[in-house]
């Protein structure tokens, strides 16, 4: 919003300036990028530099202009076949921080992600054990072995799930599990 007010200010006072784009930015942002040239809109309209595969066109050049780069820029306006490999690389590095190969290179971050995740899971296991020992009340009687056996005997006697479930695995003639 401050940018838009400055824009109206420029039109009202007829301040000499190069482009509308340069004026539609606060002076604080301009101090952050130093002497770097703004070369486009960027991915969000701010004068930032990000190496992105999905938006490979940063708003500003990477390096501030130096006399060597400026002479190379003049040479770049002519036939590119006259540029040497070193000059082409220098021009690239002046405008960009890393090459695609460099910023797409694997970082191995997945190893720390999985490792830290497992560490937190182990801590959770310890916390659960602490809760079991110090916090939880004892289990009810129905969890005891004799109670669970009696419950299973009752389930079989009532022939629960007789077609495909538990009672289907019981042989009622022999009064034992089916072989």
């Amino acid at each position: 919003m401050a940018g838009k007010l400055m824009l109206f200010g420029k039109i009202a006072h007829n301040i000499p300036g190069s482009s509308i784009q340069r004026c539609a930015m606060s002076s604080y942002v301009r101090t952050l990028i130093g002497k770097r040239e703004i070369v486009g809109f960027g991915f969000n309209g701010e004068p930032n530099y990000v190496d992105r595969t999905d938006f490979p066109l940063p708003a500003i050049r990477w390096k501030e202009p130096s006399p060597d780069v400026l002479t190379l820029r003049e040479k770049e306006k002519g036939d590119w076949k006259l540029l040497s490999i070193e000059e082409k690389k220098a021009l690239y590095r002046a405008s960009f921080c890393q090459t695609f190969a460099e910023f797409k290179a694997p970082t191995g971050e997945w190893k720390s992600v999985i490792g830290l995740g497992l560490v937190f899971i182990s801590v959770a296991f310890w916390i659960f054990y602490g809760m079991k020992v110090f916090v939880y009340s004892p289990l009810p009687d129905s969890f005891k072995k004799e109670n669970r056996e009696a419950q299973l005997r009752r389930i079989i006697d009532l022939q629960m799930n007789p077609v495909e479930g538990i009672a289907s695995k019981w042989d009622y003639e022999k009064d034992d599990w089916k072989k």
Partner: protein
Amino acid sequence: MSEVSPKVAKPQLRGLLHTQIKKNLLLTGISVVVAAVYMRFVFGDQRKRNYAEFYKNYDIDKEFDRMRNKGLFESCEPDE
């Protein structure tokens, strides 16, 4: 610029989403058909056979008496 002697096949440059969706739709169709055939002819028929097998020689009165005599019902007494 860089030296590439063997000829690399030209990659697909346009219609990438279209190709991806066509491939995904094909795989979806195949897996749907396979799953449906399995569920109907293998799983479903097996289940029907299990039920038929169970009810072929099922005597409900015998099972009822067995449970009653074990004292499992509240409304019916066991035999003496």
